[in-house]
């Protein structure tokens, strides 16, 4: 396989906009935003250029922490952000299109916000988020 | 590129002169292939009610009853994944290549299994103890064991 190299780097939530701007300036495409519910919430923003994929990891302790929306930089990100809001209950501030929780019709609010049945112990987050939310 | 009118005419008239491609389904059926996954069949004589197919079936379509000595399959739940055939230790399950007739109400096909477990000689055990014929007893318990809500069987497109 001559698959492009994948790199993961963890950044603080405050630095998200700055990092996204840097990606945009470098000509990357927003590939996806993925949220995982482990013991904490982990968001992965993937950007790709030909032959590279970069993933930015953001860890937040619980869904009450609001994140800045990158939809001013990548216009299409509102779909991912609305989805994560509807399924995980994380709030994004400053979305260019905000469906106010009506994008995914779910029977219960934030159905994916429960931690995994067979969750592994949370990985040691690097700096700002000590794992402090036992669920 | 130039636009042309009525480009479909040749195909339409050609189809009019040819035989239809469809078959009147219940009266005639399309041929099946050797590999076609049609339905699961069991050779009940070989079965030893070991429960492996019951536990490993991804949709919980197979129900094996050790006390009543039956092997049952809910055809509407079965997704023809062939997994039970792969895991069956006695090779008594097989994937036949023809489809079952459509059913009008939900029911399970129940097959009586004429298996008598070898009598455990020394100790009079109430439940059949793990013998060489039923190798599954030590299967690990899974979280959310026997998920009886199967994922959507219908293939949404």
């Amino acid at each position, binding site marked *: 396989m001559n698959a492009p190299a994948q790199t993961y780097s963890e950044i603080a939530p405050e630095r998200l906009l700055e990092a996204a701007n840097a990606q945009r300036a470098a000509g990357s495409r927003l590939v996806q935003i993925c949220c995982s519910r482990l013991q904490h919430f982990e968001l992965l923003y993937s950007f790709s250029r030909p032959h590279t994929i970069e993933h930015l990891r953001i860890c937040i302790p619980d869904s009450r922490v609001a994140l800045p929306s990158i939809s001013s930089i990548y216009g299409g990100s509102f779909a991912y952000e609305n989805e994560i809001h509807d399924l995980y209950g994380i709030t994004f501030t400053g979305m260019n299109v905000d469906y106010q929780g009506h994008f995914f019709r779910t029977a219960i609010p934030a159905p994916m916000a429960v931690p995994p049945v067979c969750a592994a112990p949370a990985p040691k987050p690097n700096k700002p988020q000590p794992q402090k939310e036992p669920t | 590129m130039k636009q042309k009118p*009525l*480009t*479909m*005419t040749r195909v*339409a*008239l050609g*189809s*009019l002169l*040819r035989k*239809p*491609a*469809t*078959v*009147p389904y219940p009266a005639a059926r399309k041929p099946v292939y050797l590999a076609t996954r049609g339905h699961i069949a069991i050779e009940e004589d070989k079965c030893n009610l070991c429960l492996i197919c019951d536990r490993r079936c991804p949709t919980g379509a197979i129900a094996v009853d050790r006390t009543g000595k039956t092997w049952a399959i809910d055809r509407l739940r079965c997704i023809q994944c062939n997994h039970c055939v792969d895991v069956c230790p006695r090779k008594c399950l097989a994937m036949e290549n023809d489809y079952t007739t459509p059913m009008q109400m939900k029911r399970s096909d129940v097959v009586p299994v004429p298996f008598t477990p070898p009598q455990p000689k020394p100790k009079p055990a109430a439940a059949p103890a793990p013998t060489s014929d039923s190798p599954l007893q030590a299967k690990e318990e899974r979280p959310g064991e026997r998920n009886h809500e199967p994922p959507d069987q219908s293939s949404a497109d």
Partner: protein
Amino acid sequence: MSAWTRILAAILFVLLSPILAGLLAGLDRIISARMQSRIGPPLLQPIYDLLKLFQKERIAVNRSGHFFLLGYLLFTILAGIEFFIGGDLLIVIFALALASVFFVLGAFAAGSPYSHIGAERELIQIMASEPMLIMCAMGFYVATGSFQVTTIHAQPTPLIATLPGIFLGMIYILTIKLRKSPFDLSTSHHAHQEIVKGITTEFAGPYLAIIELAHGYETILLLGFLYLFFAPWPLLALAALIAVYFLEILADNTHARLYWQWVLRTSWAFTAIVGAGNLILLHYLQRGGTP
């Protein structure tokens, strides 16, 4: 025509048209299916459908809508009777137009947006087809000097010889009236359309059956119009009608559905060129022939 033959013709039209239209629709469906490499339904399927619709539950979205539908059926039948007893062609055309308006009103009476858009598009289709019908009556008048169907029917030479343009125009609007692609805008024979069944969306069961029935009468009436072009030679007329209907099916199977703007523009342009052109030419020829 004696009074008795007129009554007989009227009764025959009322009784036989649904059966004839049903058989025609059945043939249409089989031929369409064969063009699409399918086996298709039994020949009598449209008639089974109709009978089944009549047996279904009556659900009313809006009662006034059903009153309008009855108007649609009644005026279509009246138009047909007037035609087949050899009456006045203008009355036929006006009754037909009135029937269409009742149909549109019926669809407007229901609150659904799909029904509304369908009704608006039906109005556009009426706008596209009505001028040609009137031109057809005018053509018959110019050629024969009468609006009476009996007089037109009794012509010794077939009118197709003098009115070929009008005939072409009539085939064109027959496609609109039969709701065939590319003109199946307001409703279509199958529901795969952006406004679903459009104008008929809100009608179900017996009320939908009324629409189907009226549509059947309308089809027979329009084929009667085309028959007049070949009146002295019935066998040729039959062959021509079969050929025309086959072409309609072919057109349905070789076109995508187009936009209403396109339909309106081209219908007017086409009917103006062939219809009005034919009329003007005929007028000058007759003036030149009999100075």
